[in-house]
Structure formats: structure tokens, C-alpha cells
């Protein structure tokens, strides 16, 4: 009898708590399906400069190298998710939060970042510098 009563009370308590626990976790939001974005206009960026742009729901970094070519990476630091920036004095990608450095291949070369930055493809389409996520 005690077991039956105890189980019933426990089950009813779980039935109250479960919806509350589910409630506090928000439903997943569908991410932008777009795999490409016009990150800048041709000529907008000077050589040896960088620009943060929005790629889906995340920031990304477009870098124009000293030779005029472009590279693009995720701007989310692989350490603790701060937004990185291009340092024209160092010619490297830098995270201000914990002093992490990445080279222009996106590889983590100094400081705490444990992994390279995700790299994107860059194409020129008309007046636009278009960045594409690898399929």
C-alpha cells in the first residue's frame, strides 16, 4: 500500500516537474539555410584589412591580404566563442578576449584556441565579394 501510494505521489511530482524542465529549454530555431552571402563590395576593403560580416546567425571575417586576394573564416573563436578580428599590424587573426592568434590559413598558432577557424570559399561575382560555405 505504501509502495503504491509512494509511487503515485512520485509519479505525480515528476509529471509536474517534467513540463517545467522542458519549458525552460527553448525550441530550436531554424538556422538560415543560405550557404552564401555577399560579404562586401569589390574595392570596399583595402589591402591588408579585414571586415566582420553576418553569415547566417554567426559573425564571419573577410580578410583582404596584402596581395589583394581574399580569404574568409568563421569569426567565432574556437576557445570561448568571442568574435575575432584581423590585425593588419600582425597580419594575423586575433581574439581580444584571451589573446588567441590564428594565421591566415585559419590555423591556431598561439594562445589558448584549441582548433582552427572554419574556412569559407570566396568568389567575386560582379561587384560583390561572395563568401560560400563549403558543402
Amino acid at each position, binding site marked *: 500500500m505504501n509502495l503504491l501510494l509512494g509511487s503515485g505521489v512520485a509519479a505525480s511530482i515528476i509529471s509536474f516537474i517534467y513540463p517545467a524542465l522542458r519549458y525552460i529549454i527553448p525550441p530550436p530555431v531554424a538556422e538560415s539555410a543560405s550557404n552564401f552571402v555577399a560579404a562586401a563590395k569589390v574595392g570596399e576593403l583595402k589591402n591588408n584589412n579585414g571586415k566582420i560580416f553576418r553569415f547566417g*546567425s554567426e*559573425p564571419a571575417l573577410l580578410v583582404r591580404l596584402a596581395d589583394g586576394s581574399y580569404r574568409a573564416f568563421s569569426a567565432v573563436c574556437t576557445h*570561448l566563442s568571442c568574435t575575432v578580428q584581423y590585425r593588419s599590424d600582425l597580419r594575423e587573426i586575433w581574439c*581580444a578576449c*584571451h589573446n588567441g592568434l590564428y594565421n591566415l590559413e585559419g590555423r591556431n598558432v598561439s594562445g589558448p584556441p584549441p582548433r582552427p577557424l572554419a574556412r569559407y570559399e570566396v568568389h567575386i561575382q560582379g561587384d560583390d565579394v561572395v563568401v560560400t560555405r563549403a558543402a
Partner: protein
Amino acid sequence: MATLYRKTLNWMDERFGAGSVEEFLRHKTVPVTRHILWYYLGGMTLFLFIIQVLTGILLLLYYRPTPNDAFESVQFVMTQVRFGWLIRSVHSWSANLMIFTAFLHMFSVYFLKAYRKPRELTWISGMLLFFIVLGFGFSGYLLPWNTLAFFATKVGTEMAGSVPGIGKWLLVFLRGGQEVTGATLTRFFGFHIAVLPGLATLLLAIHLFLVQKLGMSVPPSVERAVAEGRTSLRNMPFFPNFLLRDMIGWYAALGVLGGLAAIFPWELGTKADAFAAAPAGIRPEWYFLFTFQTLKYLPARILFLEGEFAGILGFSVGAVVWVMVPFLDRRIGFGRLTRVFTGLGVFVIGYIIVLSALALR
């Protein structure tokens, strides 16, 4: 005045036995030792908490917790509302002073070994309150929705996401999604003005009840001196003697708060932009500097663990050891000091000071 007080007390005594409260307060005593200055820190922290509640309620009259409005509403308080700059600055300064006095209170209790039997639960409830105070600081920091706060929250919640097992769940729970967005702001606002105050009130009631029930601890060195007959223990009535001294401290604290708020109004910074790079020189509030600097020094990998994970694991284990000290410091007995745990306390203080100073360089 005295007659009115007596009449009021009599009126209440007839109905609720209020005289017994006064009797209880009169019987409560505080040991008078050369360490007595440290005994004021708990009351000072409580006083600053009350200032936080009062100024927080005033800020609520204008604050709007959405990414489009939060920064502007604080800007409005600072620039348009009469004495808004003062209320907001007092709230910010008082928050920092409260955390500072909470640190001092914690370390003074630690070094005076006031956590020893029978006060283990007083220590644990105090430590939980301390973590809540840090939670207040962390959640309140985001509310003006400025750049520094945005990235501090990003880093802080990402660290929570590294907790083994529940990390992913914890990150989504704290952020209200995968990223720091308006949903995070709404949640932090809820934590700051409802969840944490509720928990703090409950724990504070338990903490104060335990302090009342068990009385104030006599430091082991004094206890030993009394036992060996080298001195006798003097006591001071809590009411009104100690309370009046407490109140002088609170009055002075009000003056300090007003002075700091007037001379150094709290800055607002620039509005957060989720698609801007983290600014150079970014760092968290002073009480998180030592963790921030530690994470800076850790390499990408330590043995088979990611550096960041190893650091967070280290801090978590350290915090658990610190909370459980009354049960680990088992040799502490009547008048005996345990050097290992005193050494641990000195190391923790030294670590916090040195790493914080390095972060400020």
C-alpha cells in the same frame, strides 16, 4: 521617543509577545576580541544588499529588457531622469562593494576558523550566498547590453557550456538558445530580479537564523587563551551596543557610496553589436579577473584535455573543496589551528591577487 518606543513594544507584546524578541536581542552577545572588526563584515554585506534591492527597484521603473531598448533605457536613466545617474551609479558601486565585503567576510570567517563545529551549515549557507552574489554580478552586468557585457556573457556562458555532462544543456538554459541574443537578456533579467533574489532571501533567512541560533564564533587563539587562563572572554550585548556600531559603519558606507557615485559615475560604454569584433583590452569585472587570466595562460591542450576544460574543471574542484572545508579540516578542534588549511587560504588569496594584478597590467 523612549516612551513611544516602550508604548509600541507593550502594544505589540500584548498581542504577539514582541517583548520576547527584545529579550532575545538583549541576551545575544558578541565576543569582544582583537578580531572584532571582522565581525562587522557580514552586517555590512547585508546592508549593501539592501541598498541593491532598493536602488534595483528604482531602476526597474525605467529599465526595458530587450536588445533594442535596454541600452537606450539605461542611457535615458543616466541622462534624462532626475538623479538617475546617481541611482544607477550607486547600484553599480554598491554591487561591487557588496562583492568586496562578501569576499572579506568569507576570508575572515575562513582564517578565524569560524566554520568549525557546530557552524558547518552556517559556512555552507554563506558560501551558497556568495555564489548567488557572484550570480547577481554576472547577470546584472549584461543588463545595460553594452559591448563589454555582451562578450563577458558570451565567454562566461561558453565556460558553463564546458561543464561535463550537463554543459550543453546549461549553455542553452542560460542563453535561451545557442547564441547570446535578446533571449539571453530576457533570461538574465529574470534571474537578476526574480530567481536570484528569491534564492538569496531564502538562504539569507537560513544563514541569519544559524548565526542567531549558534551565536558568534570565538577565534581558536582566543579560545585557547581563555582555556589556559591567560585572559577572560568579554562580551558585548548585540542590542543595542553592537548594532549601533554596525549602524555607524553603514552610515559611513552610505557616505562612501554617495562619494564614489558622484565622483566616479558608472560608465555605460557602447551598445552591444553581435556582429562586431571583441574590442581590444576586453576583460570581465574585477572579481572574475583571476579566472579570466588563468584561461589566458592555459595552453590549447593539457594532457588529453582541452586547456579551457582543464581550467574550468580545476576551478570547479577548487570551489567544491572550499565549500567542504568544515568537513575536510577535521583536526581543527578546541583552540587548535590546522596549518594546511590556513596555508590553502593564503594560497587562494595570493592566487586571486597576483592573477588579477596580471590581468590589469
